[in-house]
């Protein structure tokens, strides 16, 4: 009887590892800061900080489920942020990219999404039909995105954005003591959409099948190439959203916007249980992974851990997460 209970507990722990990790971290942080790190203001800071990364992480998470990878995230988000910002500049701003032109609010959002979608499509075609390894294909597009960003902006900072555009990511709602950032709502909505896609559509099931065994997926009638193009395209759209929100939050975009976001996003979904071996991962896990990494960043800042040491801790956590992930799936194999 005791053995059965132990087994059930082990299965529960294994299934909910990411969640357990998050709760343990919350608990540790609460104890170390005597609860001060978990005030609503602090939680709000964490949500705002991780919301943009959540979009990028959900995108690359889907790609990793198909056993791919995307290194172009940071520069594509940088490009989409710059494109979006350029259509949201105050028209009378003397160095505005479209000086004298006033665009409706949907334009920066649309153009950011178009830029992200096109890059996603390009990545997908290179991987699916060009048969390039995703690592190499997206390494190339990473550089292309950077080049286009520099050419488009002439390496200048795209700033002086309209108040309406800034409000998209900077505003909150609710009573003054419990303000909820709009960003939190966007994350919930997009997580729900990706969850529906992955769990309740045939294409979502195909993504898992392709990541599990592309050859077997093909034999079973799945159009692997088409689905791969789609997954990179969807990810591109999510990067577009991330860019729009980032430009709105910062009220600017420049060549260093989203610097290194690809590593943060990949690390977050890996910690969240998305296997680098493909075919495994949940939206819930990804979201918890994102906020786990955010909590680690936040916690270390809060605990006054010097930046020099933060790199060590974050690096160690990523290595440990991947190590246990590989061990887990090696056992299954």
């Amino acid at each position, binding site marked *: 009887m005791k053995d059965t209970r132990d087994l059930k507990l082990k299965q529960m722990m294994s299934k909910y590892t990411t969640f357990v990790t998050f709760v343990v971290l919350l608990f540790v942080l609460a104890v170390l800061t*005597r609860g001060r790190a978990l005030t609503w203001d602090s939680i709000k*800071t964490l949500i705002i900080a991780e919301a943009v990364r959540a979009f990028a992480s959900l995108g690359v998470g889907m790609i990793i489920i198909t056993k791919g990878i995307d290194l172009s995230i940071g520069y594509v988000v940088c490009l989409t942020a710059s494109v979006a910002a350029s259509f949201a500049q105050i028209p009378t701003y003397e160095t505005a990219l479209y000086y004298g032109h006033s665009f409706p609010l949907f334009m920066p959002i649309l153009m950011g999404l178009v830029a992200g979608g096109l890059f996603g499509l390009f990545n997908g075609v290179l991987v699916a039909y060009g048969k390039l390894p995703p690592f190499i294909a997206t390494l190339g597009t990473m550089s292309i995105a950077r080049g286009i960003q520099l050419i488009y902006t002439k390496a200048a900072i795209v700033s002086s954005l309209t108040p309406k555009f800034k409000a998209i990511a900077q505003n909150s709602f609710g009573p003054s003591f419990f303000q909820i950032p709009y960003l939190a709502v966007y994350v919930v909505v997009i997580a729900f959409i990706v969850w529906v896609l992955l769990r309740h559509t045939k294409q979502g099931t195909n993504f898992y099948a392709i990541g599990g065994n592309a050859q077997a997926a093909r034999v079973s009638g799945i159009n692997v190439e088409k689905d791969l193009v789609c997954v990179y395209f969807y990810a591109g759209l999510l990067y577009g959203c991330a860019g729009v929100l980032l430009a709105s939050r910062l009220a600017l975009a420049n060549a260093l916007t989203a610097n290194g976001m690809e590593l943060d996003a990949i690390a977050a979904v890996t910690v969240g249980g998305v296997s680098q071996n493909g075919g495994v991962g949940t939206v819930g896990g990804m979201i918890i992974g994102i906020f786990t990494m955010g909590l680690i960043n936040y*916690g270390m800042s809060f605990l006054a851990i010097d930046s020099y040491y933060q790199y060590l801790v974050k690096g*160690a956590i990523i290595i440990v997460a991947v190590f246990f992930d590989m061990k887990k799936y090696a056992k299954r194999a």
Partner: protein
Amino acid sequence: MKKLALVLAALIALGGMAFASGGGQSSGGGSSSGQVQIALLMRNIDEQFLKDYSESVRKLAAEKNVALNVQDARSDGATQLTQLQTLLNQGYKYFVIVPCVSELSEQMNQLIQAKGGAAAYSNIQPTVDALKVGKNFFFASSPEFVGGRYQGQLIADYFDKNPGKAPGKAVNMLLILGQLGHPAQVNREAGLLAELKTRGYTVNIIARDTANWTPDQSQQKMDAWIAAYRGKFNVVAAQNDGMALGAVESLIQNGFTKSDSSDGTTLTVPVLGIDATQDAINSMKENKLYATVLQDAVGQSASAFDVVYQIASGTYKAGNAAGGTPAATTPIDEAPANDASIIGQCYLVPFVPVDKNSTYYKTH
């Protein structure tokens, strides 16, 4: 997999406890111990100047028994904004900031102002509007245009002494830039070209491109330029010392050397940087780098830290000197110190040209 949870918890707990107790830094928010708490927000710590700056602030904090919290934003504005918000939640109110981008400074100051805090900015200037958020916000840095002018002055002095190397007073320049759009990149270049023009030289830019402040990119760029423009340039100007030293290596490896160093360098083409890092001074002592311009990391950090410390400890009065630098009184051409209404919030730490005759060179 539950091991993962344990390992993660152990890591954060160990890290937290070690630094909360042994690191000499408070893990708490307010200053219940009476110790002044200051946070240093760095845009990154990869460049030599910024390393020197942050090390100087650490030293000053230790001397004043200040609890210092250092955060590196890895050049990401969003990360820096989050770090600021986190520290404000924690109870930090006083900040020394090297911002990722000027345009972020107003938003940052509004957040700090809401908590009744103060901040001083260096290296990347805050906007005029950012300083207008309150009288407790400061600019403690060096005017980049002047730094560029000094580099131009050193080049003009070199060719005045060696007119045969610039026939017809023509300066044929390879210009290695920092990050494009960076205020230092824009203003140093403008100052350099303006000074050479004032001194009667015609500047022909043979090649001009960014090496993003890094020696390795600079060396690669120079290798390519040497292949394309050998014999067509007579000076190499880099916007920081790291890139200048990358160019020096490239020139040496491509045979641009001579045995005579009477003109101040054994390179056939003089190379100049900006920052006067110790590596640059060492290179000058080896007769490689010709000259540099001191951007005083210690002076800037001392001014920024001191003015914030004065506010935190309640001793600040408008017009006080900070870290040995007087508050500015007369507006200059470069923002934000071009606005008379906030000029008293600016501490302009002077650049200093450094060649082999300069006091700085002789004492380092």
